[in-house]
């Protein structure tokens, strides 16, 4: 049986440089969601968007929006009051 090799380096380390950075630290509802949506509209397919925020509900809701828009959620890191979310269009 032939050996199947899977290269997982990229999957383990999503260290792709962000194409668009959205800094909504200190912003509250609905600004983080809205700013992310604006960034997604500006992004080209394949672009990586990195979002910094401090609004706790948005940490849960941005991933919901990403799913609703059928985009890829690369990572959610940090605490509820200081987080980073990476999205790929």
């Amino acid at each position, binding site marked *: 049986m032939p050996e199947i090799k899977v290269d997982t380096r990229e999957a383990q380390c999503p260290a792709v440089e962000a194409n668009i950075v959205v800094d909504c630290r200190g912003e509250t509802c609905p600004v983080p969601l*809205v700013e*992310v949506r*604006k960034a997604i509209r500006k992004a080209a397919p394949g672009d990586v968007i990195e979002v910094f925020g401090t609004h706790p509900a948005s940490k849960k809701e941005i991933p919901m*929006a990403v799913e609703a828009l059928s985009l890829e959620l690369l990572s959610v890191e940090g605490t509820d009051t200081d987080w980073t979310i990476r999205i790929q269009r």
Partner: protein
Amino acid sequence: MEDKADKVTIVLHSGDMDKVYSALIIGNGALAMGMEATIFFTFWGLQRLKRGALEKGPLSKMNMLGLGKWMVKQRMKRANVATLEKMLQDFKELGGKVMACDMTMEIMGIRPEDLRQEFIDEYCAVGSYIQEARESAITLFI
């Protein structure tokens, strides 16, 4: 017909500051989550589309001749809540639709040039609201 699950239509009847916030937050939230959104401005709500009037509404409760509103505004500023102006601009930038009730314009003597026409997509009546609402998964009266 469009996918029924993908649209929110809001009737904004109130011109109270807090209720205008509700309408614009929900509208922006819908657009951000990938839905379409329409706000039908009527009666006191339409007053807020006059030039310079967007932030001028009283608080729906405990306005206390403007004192309550002032206190709430201070707290909103501290919490870094966006202005209604920013929310309306975001709503339009994300593709939200603004409808203005033409009967209200007639009753209240509002001319198109009194309104911020750059934000208004359509001047219309109940039939247009129903057409929007019938293909919306969510419709609200505020």
